[in-house]
């Protein structure tokens, strides 16, 4: 037995899978599909026949996605916040690679054989932890964050995160201990490694939160769309 509602849900899933994930275009397309089906059913065709015709006339998902991409819509605030998150994490990751490694190598070179294996490994471990934290925060933050439905609050938190990034970097740069280069004590060195590492890690985490809040909402919205269609 043909289930029209289920068929529409499946069609919606196909569209989502093909990348037409923005709620507004997909909703409009579904409304059109339903109008077309309702209109054609008046002429005596079965639900299955009308659904087949309507899906064919509305067009293929990849083709539609290509056309929607050309719309050149101005960036919405949500996209700007998400992009800012991407930039924060990318900068943090990039800087971690370039900031910490030279410090680590300079320290090892300066101390050569005088330090134990454990001491030599410590900075590498610290560096690996900061990189891992960045990657993990990027991948999983949105799963841990609550879904904040209040758009204004969500955006305010996002913007605060990015402002926080800038303030934190400024704080670290201004508070780097002076004369570290001349005095390569282990304590000084670990402090610098920690500050440089944490500078970028904090930036990555804040960027991940700003981006993750928006991502959490859009993931939830896509899930609700699917569930609403199934009910």
């Amino acid at each position, binding site marked *: 037995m043909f289930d029209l509602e289920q068929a529409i849900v499946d069609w919606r899933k196909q569209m989502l899978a093909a990348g037409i994930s923005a709620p507004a275009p997909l909703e409009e397309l579904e*409304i*059109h599909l339903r*109008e077309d089906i309702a209109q054609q059913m008046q002429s005596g065709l079965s639900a299955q026949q009308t659904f087949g015709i309507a899906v064919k006339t509305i067009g293929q998902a990849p083709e*539609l996605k290509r*056309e929607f991409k050309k*719309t050149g819509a101005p960036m919405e605030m949500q996209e700007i916040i998400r992009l800012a998150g991407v930039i924060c994490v990318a900068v943090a990751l990039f800087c971690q690679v370039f900031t910490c490694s030279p410090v680590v190598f300079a320290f090892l070179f300066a101390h050569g054989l005088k330090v134990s294996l454990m001491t030599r490994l410590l900075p590498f471990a610290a560096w690996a932890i900061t990189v891992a934290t960045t990657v993990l925060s990027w991948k999983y933050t949105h799963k841990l964050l609550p879904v904040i439905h209040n758009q204004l609050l969500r955006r305010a938190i996002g913007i605060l995160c990015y402002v926080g990034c800038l303030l934190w970097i400024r704080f670290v740069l201004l508070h780097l201990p002076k004369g570290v280069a001349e005095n390569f004590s282990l304590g000084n060195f670990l402090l610098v490694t920690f500050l440089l590492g944490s500078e970028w890690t904090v930036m990555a985490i804040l960027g991940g939160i700003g981006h993750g809040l928006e991502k959490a909402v859009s993931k939830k919205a896509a899930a609700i769309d699917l569930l609403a269609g199934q009910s």
Partner: protein
Amino acid sequence: MIRKELVAASAEPLVLSLLSKGESYGYAIIQEVKARSDGKLQWTDGMLYPVLHRMEHRGLIKSRWGESETGRKRKYYSLKKDGKTAMAKHHEHWMLVHSVLAGLKKEQYV
């Protein structure tokens, strides 16, 4: 069947001209174009929406969510001032092409 390129090029002037009669929604626009061209202007229905969105972002038309008589949700589009100007330009250009073609055709019979 009319060539795809011509159908695509005519979409914007046709939508603008239809909306100049009053606000309308996607499905009705397609039906009216079909009816007025005796079904010869066949759009892939879904393709109308990217066109409408593009025109909206260019400030030619505006949209609002509303409801049909039966309570069904619909997105209505209407013409903006810039849309009227764009429509006048389209008419001018298409009439020019039409008059050149008509003139050339006429000469063939002289």
